[in-house]
């Protein structure tokens, strides 16, 4: 793919023609001190690690204060950004590699402020909730240290102005998610889940490194702004390798954002505590991939390769949004349903960025953060009450847990896209953008996405109707006595419910454009289509589709679909006993051909396990064992052998020479004693006589001489 300079200048002209004028300031001191946003949680994470146990609330207080600080700073930045527009970038040189500068810095623009705000606000509410949820946990302080590190890593990532720092944050998020998913490591399944998340992400990370290196080497800098500047200014190498760099970076994003076929880790990541799932699915971790594509959006929009690259992105996103949604139907674990739902919604976001709908994709990310964290925290509240993740242990909880029920219902309405809740506006904007692309520039991918998006909306409505029906309606089937959660858990639910209900109103086509103004303040202008009014034709299609999905779901899984088996309990002879319900069967709807495929997750996990993990792991394990036994162990074995030999020879000397002296002295003394003893039979008077004889002899000698 060779590109002439003429074509590159066309790129520049294209961007200039389509770019909207961004009136932006540098944010002054507000932006200059924004480095505090990633630094404070990182520092606090380590403070908790070392001093958490001795601090008030055992670490929770510090963690929540750090996130509260980020939330407040993010909100202040957001307001300042909406008023004046902030585009600022700061970098501190850390060192050089050849001609490449390694820098640490922070970007403050619409996109990063969005993430600061989301991580801060959602994180703060989730941390508050976690105090109630994690009460009595054995590793309470450690949990909050890792959780703060998780949020801090994400903030390092989103504040990064260059690839190096982005990758540092990217890996911090990866490693802290590993720690948190495996938080209950007493259970082998949870360790496997943590490993799976880490390994799957590593595969994607390798692609990200390759892409980042290609892009940075081609552009001659790690700096995003430099890369964009060279790209628009006519850097031929970058245009040549752009497709491959973009593809590799997208694969990296697929890993973190759980796009098909690298989605396998996210449902398993439910092994972690529920607050982790809530934050991971809302503001940190999975949004990192979407954020990365959004950050590099000007790059992905270069006309030279954007066609083929974006087709791939759209198709991957569209497949993810529909097929992962289908998997949510067959899950019994309520958190897994929500996990597949997240994967599906991430598909919407990725596909939206693929069709060039920058604002729409980020808008869905924004609204999704509120309603998905709400749904997760609601699920956590239920799990807290019934001590089970499985919906077969729930039912009828509406009566016991009214706050959880109503907030969960608002979250559901927002997720499926009921007017006027948040998801309605954001999802509609995505589908409208796809529809606009499909009609203006008819190509397969855009139509593919439109159709799959509408089907996806149906599926979303269907499985959410199932979740709500099985959880809150019908007969309660669990063993524990359900109760409403304490205020520390319900207050965050209510706060998030307010967000889920109202955030959609920020960007009503033709009416409000707060969110568009928010995220389009960037150094490199965003080229995208804005709608003057809602696409009524799409609303006319989607709303009935969603309602139909809800209705079918309610009919198939609601109280009316419960099978009550009646009979007499106990003795058969006791015929006079009144008949009563002895068993309740629910969740009985099955499509015979489809369900085995869905229940086995399209066999993708099996394919990875049997096709990649086991064939790789077996020989590698055998080889490393051999190396360990024969090479690594050889050194200590040799050392031990030499030491043993030396010890043996020393022992010979010790036994014979050193001990010999003492033994000889002892033995000769003993022998002398035995010899002399025979002359002295032990009689006192004999001794006295001998003594006297001695005296006489001496006296005689004295007289003679």
């Amino acid at each position, binding site marked *: 793919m060779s590109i002439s300079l003429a074509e590159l200048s066309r790129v520049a002209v294209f961007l200039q023609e389509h770019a909207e004028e961004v009136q932006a300031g540098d944010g002054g001191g507000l932006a200059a001190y924004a480095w505090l946003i990633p630094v404070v949680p990182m520092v606090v994470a380590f403070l908790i690690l070392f001093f958490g146990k001795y601090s008030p609330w055992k670490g929770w207080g510090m963690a929540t204060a750090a996130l509260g600080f980020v939330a407040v700073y993010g909100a202040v930045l957001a307001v300042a950004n909406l008023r004046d527009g902030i585009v600022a970038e700061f970098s501190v040189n850390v060192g050089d590699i050849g001609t490449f500068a390694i820098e640490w810095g922070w970007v403050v623009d619409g996109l990063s402020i969005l993430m600061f705000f989301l991580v801060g606000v959602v994180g703060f509410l989730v941390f508050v909730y976690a105090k109630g949820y994690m009460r009595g946990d054995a590793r309470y302080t450690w949990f909050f240290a890792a959780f703060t590190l998780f949020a801090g890593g994400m903030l390092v990532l989103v504040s990064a102005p260059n690839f190096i720092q982005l990758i540092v944050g990217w890996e911090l998020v990866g490693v802290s998610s590993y720690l948190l998913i495996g938080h209950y490591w007493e259970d082998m399944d949870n360790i496997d889940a943590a490993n799976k998340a880490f390994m799957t992400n590593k595969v994607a990370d390798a692609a990200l490194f390759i892409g980042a290196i290609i892009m940075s080497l081609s552009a001659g800098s790690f700096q995003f702004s430099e890369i964009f500047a060279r790209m628009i200014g006519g850097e031929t190498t970058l245009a040549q390798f752009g497709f491959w760099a973009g593809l590799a970076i997208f694969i990296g994003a697929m890993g973190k954002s759980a796009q098909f076929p690298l989605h396998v880790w996210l449902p398993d990541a439910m092994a972690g505590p529920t607050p982790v799932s809530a934050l991971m699915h809302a503001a940190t971790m999975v949004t990192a991939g979407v954020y990365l594509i959004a950050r590099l959006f000007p790059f992905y929009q270069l006309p030279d390769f954007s066609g083929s690259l974006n087709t791939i992105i759209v198709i991957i996103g569209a497949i993810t949004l529909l097929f992962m949604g289908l998997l949510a139907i067959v899950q019994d674990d309520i958190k897994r349903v929500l996990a597949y739902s997240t994967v599906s919604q991430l598909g919407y976001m990725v596909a939206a960025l693929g069709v060039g709908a920058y604002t729409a994709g980020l808008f869905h990310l924004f609204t999704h953060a509120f309603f998905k964290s709400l749904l997760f925290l609601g699920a956590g509240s239920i799990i807290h009450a019934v001590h089970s993740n499985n919906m077969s242990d729930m039912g009828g909880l509406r009566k016991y847990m009214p706050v959880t029920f109503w907030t969960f219902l608002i979250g559901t309405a927002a997720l499926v896209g009921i007017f006027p809740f948040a998801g309605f506006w954001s999802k509609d904007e995505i589908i409208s953008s796809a529809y606009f692309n499909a009609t203006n520039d008819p190509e397969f991918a855009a139509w593919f996405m439109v159709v799959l998006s509408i089907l996806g909306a149906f599926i979303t409505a269907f499985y959410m109707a199932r979740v709500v029906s099985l959880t809150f309606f019908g007969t309660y089937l669990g063993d524990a006595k359900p109760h409403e959660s304490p205020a520390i858990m319900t207050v965050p639910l209510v706060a998030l419910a307010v967000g889920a209900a109202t955030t959609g109103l920020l960007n009503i086509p033709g009416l409000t454009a707060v969110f568009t103004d928010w995220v389009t303040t960037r150094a490199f202008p965003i080229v995208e289509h804005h709608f003057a009014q809602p696409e009524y034709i799409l609303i006319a299609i989607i709303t009935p589709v969603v309602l139909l999905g809800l209705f079918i779901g309610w009919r198939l899984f609601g109280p009316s679909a419960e099978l009550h088996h009646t009979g007499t309990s106990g003795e058969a002879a006791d015929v006079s006993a009144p008949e009563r319900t002895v068993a309740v069967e629910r969740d009985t709807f099955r499509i015979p051909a489809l369900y085995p495929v869905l229940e086995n997750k399209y066999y993708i996990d099996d394919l990875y396990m049997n096709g990649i993990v086991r064939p790789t792991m077996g020989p590698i394990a055998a080889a490393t064992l051999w190396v360990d036994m024969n090479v690594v162990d050889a050194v200590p074995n040799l050392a031990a052998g030499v030491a043993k030999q030396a010890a043996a020879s020393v022992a010979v000397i010790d036994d014979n020479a050193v001990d010999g002296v003492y033994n000889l002295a002892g033995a000769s003394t003993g022998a002398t004693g035995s010899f002399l003893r025979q002359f*002295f039979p032990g009689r*006192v*008077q004999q001794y006295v*006589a001998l003594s*006297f004889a001695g005296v006489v002899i001496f006296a005689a000698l004295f007289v003679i001489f």
Partner: protein
Amino acid sequence: MTIVQWILLGAAMFSVGLYGVLTRRNAVLVLASVEIMLAAVNINLVAFDTYLADPEFTGQILALFVIALAAAEVGIGIAIILMIFRNRHSADVDELNLMKY
């Protein structure tokens, strides 16, 4: 009386005592014989002191020390003999052959 007579008396008493120590079988009488020997020594000490007209009476003071020492020796000796008698129901020195061990 001359010095010779005192010396002869001392030598005679010493010989009597020595004879008693060597021939008596009762440990108490052996001890009594030892006292006789000490008394003979005391006689010699006092006799020579007087004969030499020591202005500081060294011999007599030494005799007093010997008397005190003899009293202490008898105290310990009687106690030992008492213990031996209790253990062995006998104070016969011929049977006391434990000293070689």
